[in-house]
């Protein structure tokens, strides 16, 4: 079993998370066009990493745990990415040639 972060660290992370919630809320009221979603997802990703690394204490976990966490995201990317391949390229009509 491994070291566990201090109360101070936890509270700091919590503060950051709360602030990020307000930031994402505020940013959503500004029209950035296509970038709204990108910013929102980046913030969400950042918050997620904080929760995973500190609250779930993956930072101090074994490489095996890190591997499994990584595998989760890798497979999620496989699912989203490969489905996206179809939808992105559906309107590119080829004219009897491959490329």
């Amino acid at each position: 079993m491994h070291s566990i972060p201090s109360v101070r660290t936890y509270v700091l992370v919590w503060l950051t998370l709360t602030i990020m919630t307000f930031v994402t809320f505020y940013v959503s009221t500004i029209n950035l066009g296509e970038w709204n979603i990108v910013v929102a997802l980046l913030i969400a990703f950042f918050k997620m990493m904080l929760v995973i690394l500190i609250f779930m204490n993956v930072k101090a976990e074994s490489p095996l745990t890190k591997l499994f966490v990584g595998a989760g995201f890798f497979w999620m990317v496989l699912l989203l990415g490969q489905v996206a391949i179809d939808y992105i390229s559906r309107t590119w009509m080829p004219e009897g040639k491959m490329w």
Partner: protein
Amino acid sequence: MSTVLQDPQTVETPNYLNAEYGWKSWLFTKDHKRIAILYIISITVMFVLGGIFAGLIRVELLTPQGDLVNSDTYNKFFTMHGIIMVFFFLIPSIPATLGNFFVPMMIGAKDLAFPRINLLSWYIYIVGAAFALTAIVMGGVDTGWTFYTPFSSTFSNTFVITAACGVFIAGFSSILTGLNFIVTIHKMRAPGMTWGRLPLFVWANYATSLIQVLGTPVVAITLALVGLERAFHIGIFDPAIGGDPILFQHMFWFYSHPAVYIMILPGMGVMSELVSCFSRKAVFGYSFVAASSIGIAVIGFLVWGHHMFVTGMSMYASLYFSLLSFLVAVPSAIKIFNWTATMFRGSISYDTPMLYAFGFMGLFTIGGLTGLFLATLAVDVHVTDTYFVVAHFHYVMVGGMVLAYMGGLHFWWPKITGRMYPEGWAKFSALLVFVGFNLTFFPQFIAGYLGQPRRYHAYAPEFQVYNVLSTAGASVLAVGYIIPFIYFMWSLKFGPLAGNNPWKAKGLEWQTTSPPPTYNFETTPIVTEEAYAYAAHKENHGG
């Protein structure tokens, strides 16, 4: 050594079978071996049920006219055959039975990491099966095992929700088994049992578990969404409000293609054990065979699109999935070549399990190579959704998986029960299975290329000759399945005592008594050798 066969002491030893008695000792057991037996019984029941549906299908197809049953009934037959065989027989078959029994023993553990979760997964399986059976009893399902929308979500008038619930629930049983194996293999290995020393059956089950854990939730949520769509008459796949039925197919095949590797990978694991044991030789290219299992598990997630070349999916996506589908054939080829090479200069015996292994190598080769037809874009356009596909996946599923399961069951039967099956009958039925299987499914390749579409209740008369052959073969195949069922039952009571290691095999599971004691080993074994070290201590051998 040979005297062990007659040693009456063997049955007297305390073992998992005589540790406790009464139905409670079975239904509340936490012993992985007893749970494996529960699974063997339940999947056999499901196999018989699925087999009956298969038989009815074949009888109906004897003539081109749909004259035995009406089309609705026929549609329910093939749907129930598919759902039962895929989700309630093939997917749990080897992992939940032989895997459950032998993975802990092969790594020298006392049990799986989570015995209660193991029992829970069996109960979940039973609940799932109960749902599926309820769907049958109430009147059946007619969507095909693929549940394609919008037919399943909007148009079918049958018990789709009940069946989908059954599959959804059984999925969690599969997930929990996979979870248990992953943790067990990571954390419960005996001292000295390094990854490089794991038997290949364990590697194969590890790879299978990865797919179960990563793929099954996606089909669960997909079927849940279909069920909700049916229940509320509105949902996300409904083209009437802008939904895309092709998205359902993507999400369904994200699991259901890797699921065929759930079905075949453990079979490949059994094959490695059989070929090695009955050639008395280490598996040729151990690390390549092990790595190819993991390779199949990973690449298997990159190829699902080859089920969708004619659906109106993007042509570039087709190109991508076609190329990767060829890639996944490489690790399968590696395995076949390595098993063949293992036999080279071996000491090959013709015991029944090895006969099944011979059959597997031939039939899986055909199944795998015809898979390449389906990965080839232009040919797939013609043969997809025809009997060619039906023949192909039966060559892999039945010719591969079921043969491996039968081989494994014969191989480990003496360990599981402590008794031998009758060798002559076993050889005879192995032959029947091989002949019957080929007669059933080979003609379907030709019928498929001729253009006979699958899931047809009545078909054009020119296909009849192949269907008659197929039905004839199915009858032979049925006999080939019934005989082992009878002699296995017989052997429980009358089979000669097997002794601890009748095959002189090398795995840890053979180093304990038959049947094994409750915690598998008297004392935790310490492993000092590679797997399949048949030639080690050669000088000592001879008994």
